[in-house]
């Protein structure tokens, strides 16, 4: 029998991840690198990035993406909180990990412009083809971007 333990969930006071304590386990973990901040739209995106085991920094949850046509502007997202964290913590790199769609891209462009003057390195996750997929089934926009983002092959 599976017993579901229901604890009251709250938002982490630092990164706005969903958690049961004031600080989420990632923010509370001193081994996580405070100089790298990965910006995501939704707490579920943290789960996805964590599964890669590639990232040892911390997160910031925006709570959505810019969507002017739906009336979602920067003031509806946790942009102010992001700026405050960058000023307070010793963040050296902000990784923009918003969704690879129109709203996510617009959000990344907006944040890049906003953060550049703060002297912090701003990067955007690459977008490309799914591993294990066939090139012939790729859509034009993804394949076009993958071509643009090509890298030299080390041999």
């Amino acid at each position, binding site marked *: 029998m599976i017993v579901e333990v229901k604890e009251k969930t709250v938002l982490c006071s630092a990164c706005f991840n969903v958690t049961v304590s004031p600080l989420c386990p990632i923010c509370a973990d001193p081994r996580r690198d405070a100089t790298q901040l990965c910006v995501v739209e939704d707490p579920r995106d943290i789960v996805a990035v964590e599964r890669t085991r590639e990232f040892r920094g911390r997160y910031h949850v925006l709570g959505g993406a*810019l969507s*002017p*046509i*739906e*009336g*979602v*502007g*920067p*003031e509806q997202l946790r*942009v*102010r909180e992001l*700026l*405050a964290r960058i000023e307070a913590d010793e963040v050296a790199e902000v990784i923009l990990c918003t969704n690879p*769609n*129109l*709203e996510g*891209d*617009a959000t990344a*462009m*907006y944040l890049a*412009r*906003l953060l550049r*003057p*703060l002297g912090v390195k701003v990067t955007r996750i690459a977008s490309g083809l*799914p591993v294990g*997929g066939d090139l012939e*089934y*790729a*859509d*034009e*926009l*993804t394949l*076009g971007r993958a071509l643009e983002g090509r890298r030299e092959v080390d041999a």
Partner: protein
Amino acid sequence: MAQYRDEGVVIRTIRLGEADRIVTMVSPEHGKIRAVAKGVRKTKSRIGARLEPLSHVSLLCWQGRELDVVTQVELIDAFRPVREDLHRLGAAMTMLEIVEQFSLEHHPMPELFTMLVRALETLERTAAPMLLGAFCWKVLALEGFAPVVDSCARCGEDGELVAFDAADGGFLCRRCRRGQAVSPGAVELVRRVLGGGLAGVLGEPAGPAAQEMEHLATSAVELHLDRRLRTTRHHLAEPSASSAPGGQGA
């Protein structure tokens, strides 16, 4: 259920269930289309990426009672340069919002659709600062709301026009003036946009008169729609630390 072919420009998509999306588009033959795209949120679906907002596509759909169903999508143009520039993207989103507001389901709108696609294609080639303003005036003219710009909209006098009042149907002379004060430069721009000088206007740089012309245009559109445009209140372009919410200068 009937099957139909059309073109479309995607306005927005919203999630439906686990893997589907409801897509809102504008089309030349069917006006506004709301259709379900099945399975598009799975990575293997090519259709999903083609139905991103802003994309110009050709479609095959089944007509449904409330929502149609998209069965085939081919990409005509994704307007990538527009997606990758906040300023152009902001202008494009406002154009999409306006066209959506002027469109109705099952009401063909070939001219309005062509106007939208041409404007997006122009924006793809160049960041034409006056494109959005010009687009608004052209749409208003197409919908039968062209402002009077050659003489005073109230008294018909030929003299200098110094004000704009959308409720009066256009620009006003010094004697009749009410509404918004306008500069001679902005009046001249509107005159050229509506009088066959569009190409010339689109090649010109930004400036105070251009800004004024765009502001007049979007407020005239808002008056005719009897609704504020959401996209003009959320200017994506040129954020600075001081204009950000809660920024230093706020």
